[in-house]
């Protein structure tokens, strides 16, 4: 029998960025919050020997143990879904801080166009361009950029983001809290080339801070030392904004927040007599195997895209999406991203091994609807960037397409290219298609006996066109930078779960203003269960041409406001 714990005001399932934000805000407002974290406690003191590419980047030391839980995957419904036995395409987080511990820190706001993509596309190009008949499911988010702006502002202040105004981004109420990072030779070359070509390059907004910063919660984030170990690593300086150095200590300092580690939530509990509420969660102590029930007035799902979906599904909350009938909303609009870039080969050697996760420059002239799509066979686009994140030797072995992948020629070229190649890349948006969705697997289970999430996903024809377009534009920039030789990325075909692409999975528990087409309202409050909130990149209706974290953070602040309001007043938050 499960042990029942004392009831709390709020329980967060997962304690990463979104769980930390909700916990900090709710705890500051005087609510009693418990955070259930399946992994272990961790913080800056755990990253003292972090400059180990093999352990952390290649063997995924900080990430989810997929022997316990993974997903299954197939490209289409005709295939048998098989387990993702090894991590690859994306890196699932685990332990306190979640993926917020090992992110790069590139902190872009989504564009105004993103939130009103359907209306704005229709208005400019007509409804044909939406391609509903081809299975695309563009949808407005039910909230505008202007409505979200205060929450973006709040997240940027919490994280102390270093950056400068983007002439092609949405309007800002305030400048970035800290100035941009240092401009390096590599970045200057990109800046000059892209300016020559008529673009508007800016320094990338960065969570690796240009200077020490004390955030509004009184938490101090240190200044980045440009050591070149960010993505897949934790920061030994506490100079990369992450939940462990910002919102989690802020929540703890209130005295109203308890983190319970090694606590894996397996079910959201409901009351048979009241289908408008949930009552708490059931979780397993991952060390002892004991089961616990944590009753709560408000339950907030703060785990990753897949597990937020999974908990709703296994708890039978909401209706599963069916790609044949398109009925049901849970699991729809799964999106990912595409990358179109080009690599330039130079005589000059560069300090490619130095850097920081968000040290870069970028322009948005080919992102969103910042360019005319009338004659293009795709919508949206991507942020075009050069980054100097610190290339490492195991993972960085660039060779030309016709060079053998092993032997002397490989060795020579991969060694020479290590300091002599620069890469420009567009991070392409991904638009929802009716055939891309998440479901529950009927064959494979996790270590707790709960079915695995099943992903059905492939690139769409718009993805393929956009990737090619971005790669060609990237090649022009690389050429303008003075490369002797430019190698353009190959065209994409079927999505593969094997090579790393990006941990920017989105959708499945999307937000909106209509319960027929979304899982939560724009306060991230579940349509069917008033005291259940679901927030994260799973809330995204489509995926933009940017990294997701700033938008995730903004939604989490809005969710936190909703949780506090609900705790005070109850009821449906969209009704007012």
């Amino acid at each position, binding site marked *: 029998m499960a042990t029942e714990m004392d009831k709390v005001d709020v329980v967060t399932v997962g304690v990463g960025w979104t769980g930390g934000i909700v916990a900090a805000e709710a705890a500051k407002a005087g609510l009693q919050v418990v955070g259930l974290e399946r992994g272990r406690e961790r913080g800056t003191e755990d990253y003292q020997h972090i400059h180990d590419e093999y352990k952390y980047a290649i063997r*995924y030391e900080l990430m989810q143990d997929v022997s316990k839980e993974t997903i299954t995957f197939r490209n289409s419904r005709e295939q048998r879904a098989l387990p993702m036995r090894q991590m*690859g395409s994306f890196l699932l987080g685990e332990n306190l801080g979640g993926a917020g511990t090992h992110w790069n820190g590139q902190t872009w706001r989504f564009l105004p166009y993103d939130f009103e993509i359907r209306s704005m596309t229709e208005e400019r190009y007509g409804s044909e361009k939406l391609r509903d008949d081809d299975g695309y499911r563009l949808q407005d988010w039910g909230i505008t950029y202007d409505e979200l702006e205060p929450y973006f502002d709040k997240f940027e202040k919490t994280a102390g983001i270093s950056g400068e105004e983007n002439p092609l981004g949405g309007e800002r109420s305030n400048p970035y809290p800290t100035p941009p990072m240092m401009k390096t030779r590599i970045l200057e070359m990109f800046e000059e080339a892209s300016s020559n070509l008529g673009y508007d390059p800016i320094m990338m907004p960065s969570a690796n801070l240009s200077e020490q910063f004390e955030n509004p919660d009184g938490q101090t984030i240190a200044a980045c030392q440009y050591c070149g170990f960010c993505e897949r690593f934790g920061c030994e300086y506490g100079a990369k904004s992450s939940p462990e150095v910002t919102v989690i200590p802020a929540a703890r300092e209130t005295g109203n927040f308890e983190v319970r580690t090694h606590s894996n939530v397996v079910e959201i509990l409901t009351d048979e007599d009241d289908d408008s509420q949930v009552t708490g969660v059931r979780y397993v102590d991952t060390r002892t195997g004991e089961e616990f029930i944590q009753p709560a007035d408000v339950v907030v799902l703060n785990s990753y895209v897949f597990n937020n979906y999974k908990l709703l599904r296994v708890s039978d909350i909401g209706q599963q999406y069916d790609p044949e009938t398109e009925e049901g909303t849970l699991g729809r609009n799964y999106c990912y991203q595409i990358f179109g870039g080009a690599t330039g080969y130079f005589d000059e050697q560069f300090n490619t091994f130095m850097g920081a996760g968000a040290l870069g420059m970028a322009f948005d002239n080919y992102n969103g609807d910042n360019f005319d799509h009338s004659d293009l066979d795709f919508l949206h686009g991507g942020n075009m960037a050069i980054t100097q994140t610190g290339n490492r030797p195991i993972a960085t072995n660039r060779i030309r397409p016709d060079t053998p992948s092993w*032997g002397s020629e490989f060795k*020579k070229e991969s060694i020479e290219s290590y300091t002599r190649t620069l890469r420009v890349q567009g991070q392409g948006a991904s638009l929802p298609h009716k055939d891309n969705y998440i479901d529950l697997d009927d064959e494979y289970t996790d270590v707790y006996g709960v079915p695995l999430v099943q992903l059905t996903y492939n690139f769409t024809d718009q993805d393929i066109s956009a990737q090619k377009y971005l790669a060609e534009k990237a090649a022009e920039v690389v050429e303008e930078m003075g490369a002797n030789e430019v190698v353009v990325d190959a065209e994409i075909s079927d999505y593969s779960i094997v090579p790393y692409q990006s941990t920017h999975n989105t959708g499945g528990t999307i937000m909106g203003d209509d319960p027929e087409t979304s899982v939560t309202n724009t306060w991230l409050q579940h349509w069917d269960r008033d005291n259940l909130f679901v927030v994260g990149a799973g809330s995204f209706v489509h995926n933009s041409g940017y990294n997701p974290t700033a938008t995730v953070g903004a939604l989490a602040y809005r969710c936190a406001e909703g949780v506090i309001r609900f705790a005070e007043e109850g009821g449906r938050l969209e009704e007012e």
Partner: protein
Amino acid sequence: MAEKGPDEKQFSRRDFLKTTGVATGGIIGGSLLGGFVGFNMNGDSGGDTAQNGQQDTGGDTAQGQHDPGRIFFHNDAEFETISQAMERIFPEDDMGPGAITLGAPYFLDMQLAGEYGNNTKEYMQGPFYAGETTQGYQSRLKRSELFRLGIERLNAEANEQFDDDFSNLEGEDQDEILTRFQEGEADMGVPPATATPEDFFGLLRSATIEGVYADPLYRGNRGMEGWKMKNFPGHQYQYIDRIQSDSMVEIEPQPLFGGDHNGNGNG
């Protein structure tokens, strides 16, 4: 493009060390560097087994290779086969030392005995089905089992094609055998759902690169010579005072443990 020869490289590094006042220690583990005197910068602690915590229990082999002992490969012929296969992936040449000199086979040996070889952090529950390439690895075999099978099949293939064991072949013929694995032509002797020659080749290639460039803590990348070839400085606390330099800064690499932790790398 013009490449520096080993001699030039040696000069520039020595020059660099001199001008930056870095102490160059005595020759440590110099014997393992064979003919590559030009790359033998010494003074690095990555080759200093006493300092960096490596197990220095073995002696030297006939080829002058430092032998830290083996955990996984108990059969000398097996170890010789995989060592030579790794050497063909990353051969000793005028760029510098190859996989064997760099200790990559010892790296692999330790990895196969641990989490990596036992796929500890990977989903290994059945049922197992052959999948599409896009679905990734689907075999029931652990890496340690796949390597053992691969070694067996390397020799089977070598005997079929050239009538001799893999390790007795000339480099060119070894390359031909490896190419047959890379291109899926070799016979693994098991159904494709269990193992394909491409699976084995892919693992062999990535393990070799890992053994060449991982921190010396893992027994490969001896003397940090892999890093030196590539101009990767290893573990440096910061680059904040150098990152705006207009030209590439050459920095003597530091290992994670046992290096010159003066708080500032050597810059």
